[in-house]
């Protein structure tokens, strides 16, 4: 039997220094793709104009730190909100806000980016709860990011 090592979401890892060889050379300043403020799910209004008919990205808090190419690969052209399904309180409010995106803002798609740790699937569950409660349905995509920034899974749910 394997020894219990505690919550996978809080387990410690130290990644080896990837060194200059593995890091793709960035040329010039990398522009932010963020086109709105605020972004925390408790702070945003689902009725804000930048959500109307938009492709929306709902990212777990840790994703932007793990995914090296987050801005270029996932944020381009999208409106965003961030949340932590493990630590944030008032998650019933989150469900209502996501439902507001579906029904009021009439968003086009919702992409949920989560980390590979089990507790992060809570964010997908919130999106699915909102979808079930909503009269209007929207395609939801799930992207699972590994702790070293690799894309482990990308599929429509």
């Amino acid at each position, binding site marked *: 039997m394997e020894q219990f090592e505690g919550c996978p979401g809080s387990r410690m890892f130290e990644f080896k220094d990837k060194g200059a060889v593995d890091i793709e050379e960035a040329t010039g300043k990398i522009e932010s793709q963020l086109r709105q403020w605020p972004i925390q799910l408790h702070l945003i209004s689902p009725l804000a104009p930048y959500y109307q008919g938009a492709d929306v990205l709902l990212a777990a808090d840790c994703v932007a730190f793990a995914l090296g190419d987050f801005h270029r690969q996932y944020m381009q052209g999208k409106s965003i909100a961030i949340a932590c399904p493990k630590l944030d309180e008032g998650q019933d409010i989150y469900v209502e806000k996501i439902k507001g995106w579906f029904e009021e803002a009439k968003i086009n798609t919702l992409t949920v980016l989560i980390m590979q740790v089990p507790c992060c699937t809570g964010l997908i569950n919130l999106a699915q709860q909102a979808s079930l409660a909503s009269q209007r*349905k929207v*395609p939801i995509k799930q992207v699972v990011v590994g702790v070293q920034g690799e894309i482990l899974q990308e*599929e429509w749910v």
Partner: protein
Amino acid sequence: MEAYLDKGIKEVIDQFPEVENILNEYQIGCAPCTVGTCVLKDIVDIHNLPANEEREMMARIARAIYPDKEIEIPQVKSEIEEKVREFTYSPPMRKLVDEHVLIKRWIALIPAVVKNLDVESDEGRQLILDGVEFIRYYADRYHHAKEEDILFKYFDDDLEILQVMYEDHKTGRNHVKTILEALERKDKATIAEHLTAYGELLTEHIKKEDEILYPWMDRNLSDTQIGELFSKFHETDEQIGYSPTKYEAFINRVEETFKQ
């Protein structure tokens, strides 16, 4: 070799029949295709084989075309990342695949309908008319219209694969027209022939869409386009003015009639 990559597959197979067997081994079933004008390189690309299988297959095709020469194998695979191979249909594509289920249930009933064809009684004639209505209003207007009026518009209409799909839809409509004309004449043989041909056509057509066309389209559509398609399909269903449940009830009834 490059010259053959740009040739229509029927032309290549006619010239080198072994190519058909090679494609079949890699589950690329071009042989029953009624058109066959898709060019070899598009066919290889659209099936999205793993890189090693694609290289192996291309090497075998090259040997079939040039048995006495060492040929450099051209790279066909597009820059789609390998990880995308394991995918699930996007919601709009899933909807089309789900709509195929009812059509496949009708196709499965065609042999029994043909075996029990009755053009004399009102009941027998009504079954044929109801079947034709199912094809016209569910398979064609409800389902194929979503493809022709919405989905295919996101791609270049001149693509050979789309031309094949349009041709299949047209052939299906011609079968239906012939069935109705034959029913007027009480011509059982013609009805049986064209109903059977319709079933065979749609079996291949649905297989091509489910396994090849829709996955390829999913790989080439952006998230924004997927969302648009989803909304447009939903709007079309709301505007069409009739419910598909009517046709599901028809299929249930015919299945019950011919239940063994």
